[in-house]
């Protein structure tokens, strides 16, 4: 990679290490069940990645990313649910051919806004556009009026609450609190068996790296530097003639689209979508992933998501009645001891040692420095 606009050397090493971990190490060491869990964790990594741009660089704290995760997820789930609700699969219903929850709610025909979701192309467009446009509307309404900081965070929370109530209340159209379950096939391809899970995992990892590249590009472009400048001294940027609101809207929209892709991946990998990912609590949890990983670090956010979720699963399997306390303790410890999260630990303690190691080896005639940097390997594990 000669182009220094996208990466510097340590970032490139970091991305390669993450690629090795996700593409080689985890698939080789985990069985399909655990790998599918990792796929589920990584869907949140899309959200965390968006939050790094929006919150870490742009300084816009959104406590409503679950909204976009949910919109993306529901778009995907609507397509999958329609495919699973073929006339022959649903012949036990009063009205065959519509999703089961509609039948339970005495709806006898497919509502008009469901119809376009028979098309995969439309669905993919909707996954990007619906949350993107929604974020654009919220962003324009807020940032053009110079609403920011805490007020913005509160409003995003309100949006998350409203959307949850809407989904739960309109159960005939959305599946209500049960969500959309029993998603089966994608264009006739069964998404449930083990080999499908593996394919979906690698597809998701691919998408994640595309998003990482986009995030890297934003970060290293002039745009990224303006975002940081805005976070530090918003007025100066404004007085320099930049339209602060437009940059904020852009960062917010990018975060929303990333979250939506994560949501769509979730519906595919887990075969499920429910309002429990839309509300306030999951939205805050997603912010915690970013905080644990380090809100200024693109890769840190991904490791943070993985670590917190591994801890969550591990603790809840070992201590079903006490695990929430352990998890709470972990958060408090990380935030108190390492305000910059895992990326902070890496940057403050691990990186300097590797650098020292490299420079001392380099002075010697034959230095196998790549070995040592790989062996010191994955951060925070």
């Amino acid at each position, binding site marked *: 990679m000669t182009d220094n606009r996208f990466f510097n050397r340590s970032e490139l090493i970091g991305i390669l290490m993450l690629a090795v971990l996700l593409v080689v190490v985890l698939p080789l060491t985990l*069985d399909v*069940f655990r790998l599918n*869990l990792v796929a*589920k964790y990584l869907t949140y990594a899309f959200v965390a990645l968006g939050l790094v741009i929006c919150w870490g660089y742009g300084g816009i704290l959104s406590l409503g990313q679950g909204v976009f995760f949910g919109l993306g997820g529901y778009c995907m789930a609507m397509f999958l649910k329609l495919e699973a609700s073929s006339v022959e699969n649903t012949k*036990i219903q*009063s009205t065959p051919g519509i999703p089961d*929850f509609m039948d*339970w*709610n*005495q709806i006898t025909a497919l509502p008009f806004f469901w119809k376009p979701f028979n098309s995969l192309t439309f669905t993919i467009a909707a996954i990007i556009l619906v949350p993107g446009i929604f974020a654009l509307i919220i962003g324009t309404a807020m940032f053009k009026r110079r609403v920011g900081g805490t007020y913005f965070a509160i409003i995003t929370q309100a949006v998350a609450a409203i959307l949850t*109530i809407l989904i*739960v*209340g309109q*159960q005939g159209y959305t599946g*209500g*609190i*049960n*969500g959309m*379950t*029993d998603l089966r096939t994608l264009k006739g391809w069964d998404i*449930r068996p083990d080999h499908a899970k593996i394919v979906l995992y690698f597809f998701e990892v691919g998408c994640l790296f595309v998003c990482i590249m986009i995030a890297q590009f934003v970060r290293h472009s002039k745009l990224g530097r303006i975002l940081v400048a805005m976070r530090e001294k918003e007025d100066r940027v404004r007085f320099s003639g930049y339209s602060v609101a437009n940059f904020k809207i852009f960062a917010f929209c990018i975060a929303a689209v990333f979250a939506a892709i994560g949501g769509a991946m979730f519906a595919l990998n*887990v*075969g*499920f979508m*429910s309002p*429990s*990912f839309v509300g306030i609590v999951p939205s805050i949890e997603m912010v915690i992933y970013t905080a644990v990983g380090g809100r200024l670090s693109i890769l840190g956010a991904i490791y943070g998501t993985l670590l917190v979720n591994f801890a969550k*699963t591990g603790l*809840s*399997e070992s201590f*079903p*009645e006490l*695990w*929430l306390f352990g998890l709470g303790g972990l958060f408090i410890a990380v935030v108190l001891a390492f305000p910059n999260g895992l990326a902070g630990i890496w940057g403050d303690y691990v990186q300097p040692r590797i650098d020292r190691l490299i420079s001392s080896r380099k002075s010697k005639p034959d230095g196998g420095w790549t070995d040592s940097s790989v062996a010191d390997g994955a951060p925070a594990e």
Partner: protein
Amino acid sequence: MGMAALPAISMLPRQSFADVPATAAVNTTGLAVTDTEVTVGILHSATGTMAISETGSIEAEKLAIEQINAAGGVLGRKIKFIQEDGASDWPTFAEKAKKLLVNDKVAAIMGCWTSASRKAVLPVVEQYNGMLYYPTFYEGLEQSKNVIYTGQEATQQILAGLNWIAKEKGAKTFFFIGSDYIWPRTSNKIARKHVENVLKGKVVGEEYYPLGNTQFNSVINKIKLTKPDVIFTDVVGGSNVAFYKQLKAAGIDLAKQPLLTISVTEDEIDGIGGENIAGAYACMKYFQSLDNANNKAFVPAFKKMWGEKTVIGDVTQAAYLGPWLWKLTVEKAGSFDVDKIAAASPGVEFKGAPEGYVRIHENHHLWSKTRVGRAKLDGQFELIYETADLVEPDPFPKGYQ
């Protein structure tokens, strides 16, 4: 039904150690069964908003497993259980169910409580061919080879209660209040059809509130305006506390205004307070105060294990049935194989059920009696009425859909 298992048993090499059949014969699908142990899963919410309701089910299942083990286990094997926490979160239920089936290879899962968690787990148990024993009364419209429903489905629970209150109180007008999700909505749909078509009465109001709602004043005003003969409620969980307190504060005396609930058990009264709900009628299949020999042994055993202060509600009792029915079915089938258990289930009867007697129907639901109880000040129900015969489970009721 369990014929497929018979040749296998008769071909056993040597019945050397007592009459414990060889593992290879009773477990042909690689479940977690050894010569001395069989593993089952317990999957309920130990944390989160549903923990208050599901803890009773966990306790009942552990009691049943302990009693079965004390009586010699299943096919000579002790039951070992792995407990997982669904954390009141439906996708977590699905994930943990998959872990129990794929990783731990449990022979059966006792679990789920809300319809939402069951709907999340159902595709998993069907895909990996597991066996789920589901304890809660629920809305029906479902039937699966891989699930045994040990609670009542909606028509079983509701119709007898409505008939009784129409006859006893001469009720003609009904006001429905429910939480806003699939079970109350389906239950009220069935109740409405029954009121309008069979009882020739009238539904004067039907209102829904989100789960966890605590403001019922507007609906209470509507009740005062419409003056229904019966208030019929399926409000669930913590909302009940607010609902009954506000009802009382608004001056509606349940001794004079008949109220029939299908969602308040002894567990909920613990939170509501006996003085706030005394006089209300509940319609379900079990009350802690039932006077029969099985229940007189069950209640003290439960209290001995889990403390004098615990109360036992309808779902807790239904959860207790799960491990027993599974044991009886395994013994009938002579095998732990899920296919054989699913096939052998119809007709399995449990004479030691605290509710009296239950039998599994071809549709994997239970034949059971429906009972009406009146809430007393001490938080217990006084049995007022019970159906003469077992009520047939009918998850896809004709004329009620």
